[in-house]
């Protein structure tokens, strides 16, 4: 079955894509929405333009759809992008990296049904620490590119997801009720390398924007 991956460039959608490939599915294209609203309800926003670099090293076509990022308009934009994927690449299904977000998963389910596509959420209800540990096991190189909640600060930007990171997340979960996989919007990630990439991406430089406990990092890829 030919699939599109609803792709943010972060750890969840990339890991979901890897699972689909491992199960023998063909990833025909990536679909990314670039939200002009940095507080989008549906889509991960930091560094999303960099998905172009990721698509290139994956050797998979990318549909990049701009959206104003307003609550229901962005769903229409998503539907238009998936319709394009269906027409251009003949996709029959859509993979998402949804773990806990019923808001995100149920809206994608409805759009898929309207378009006659099958929805796949292979990380659905997955244990958050198991997910982080599997990323390490699969040799994912992932960094933090956005933090949006107390007690995170600017210093957290650029952190790699490694064993030390997982141990810190375990402490933070206990102390601050932080979602260790960041799906609650506490932090956002960017994948620099994984088994789907022909080669890893290297960072040339970055700019940080924000204040207090809300920061995002725009990276430049070499």
């Amino acid at each position: 079955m030919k699939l599109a991956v609803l792709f943010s460039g972060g750890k969840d959608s990339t890991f979901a894509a890897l699972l689909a490939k491992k199960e023998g599915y063909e990833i025909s294209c990536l679909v990314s929405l670039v939200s002009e609203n940095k507080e989008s309800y549906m889509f991960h926003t930091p560094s999303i333009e960099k998905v172009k670099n990721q698509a290139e090293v994956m050797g998979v076509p990318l549909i990049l759809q701009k959206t104003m990022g307003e609550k229901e308009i962005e769903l229409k934009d998503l539907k238009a992008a998936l319709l394009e994927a269906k027409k251009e690449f003949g996709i029959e299904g859509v993979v998402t990296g949804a773990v806990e977000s019923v808001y995100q998963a149920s809206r994608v389910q409805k759009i898929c049904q309207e378009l006659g596509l099958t929805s796949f959420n292979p990380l659905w209800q997955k244990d958050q620490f198991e997910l982080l540990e599997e990323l390490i096991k699969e040799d994912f190189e992932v960094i933090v590119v956005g933090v949006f909640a107390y007690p995170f600060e600017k210093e957290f930007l650029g952190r790699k997801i490694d064993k030390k990171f997982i141990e810190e997340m375990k402490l933070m979960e206990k102390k601050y009720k932080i979602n260790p996989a960041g799906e609650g919007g506490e932090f956002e990630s960017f994948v620099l390398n994984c088994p789907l990439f022909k080669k890893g991406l290297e960072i040339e430089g970055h700019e940080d924007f924000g204040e207090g406990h809300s920061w995002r990092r725009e990276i430049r890829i070499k």
Partner: protein
Amino acid sequence: MILIVNLCNERLHYFEFVKPIEDILDREGRGFFTKSYREVVKEDLEKAKRVIICGTSLEDDSFLDDLKKFSWIADNGFNKPLLGICGGFQVIGLVFGGVLGKKTEVGFFKEKFLKNFLGLEREQEVYHLHNNFIKFSKDFERFTESGMAQAVKHRSKEIYGVLFHPEVRQKNLILEFARL
């Protein structure tokens, strides 16, 4: 040992509809083994102390054309606790002479429980993902207030069914069933 019956036609849907149930049982140290509904044999049913039939995706209803594979449910020799979730709920209803209806519901819905059902009481926010519902035969008792059956139990057997997906917000229901 709990037999988990997988209804999914697509391999990738296992992670979405079966693995979450396995994880809930695994975290509590409950033993289980999983098989596709097409591969369940007499020995599996003998080995299992309980059976859970999981749900599957909105687009996947191939199991409805394969109901003969579930004839063991109504067999007089089968007397173990059984829980059907969404697609599994539909299978149970149809095996016992219920009638299938069409109604798509996706997302959170509030359901009022009239009495205790595997630990659920009063109003609950449940996750729905279905295109069908079942009008159950009189063999089944209904536990919720709404017009469509949401949670049922066979009147004389330990056979339970839920139309919603308890693995999302009512994980304890699965553990209650595992303790029966």
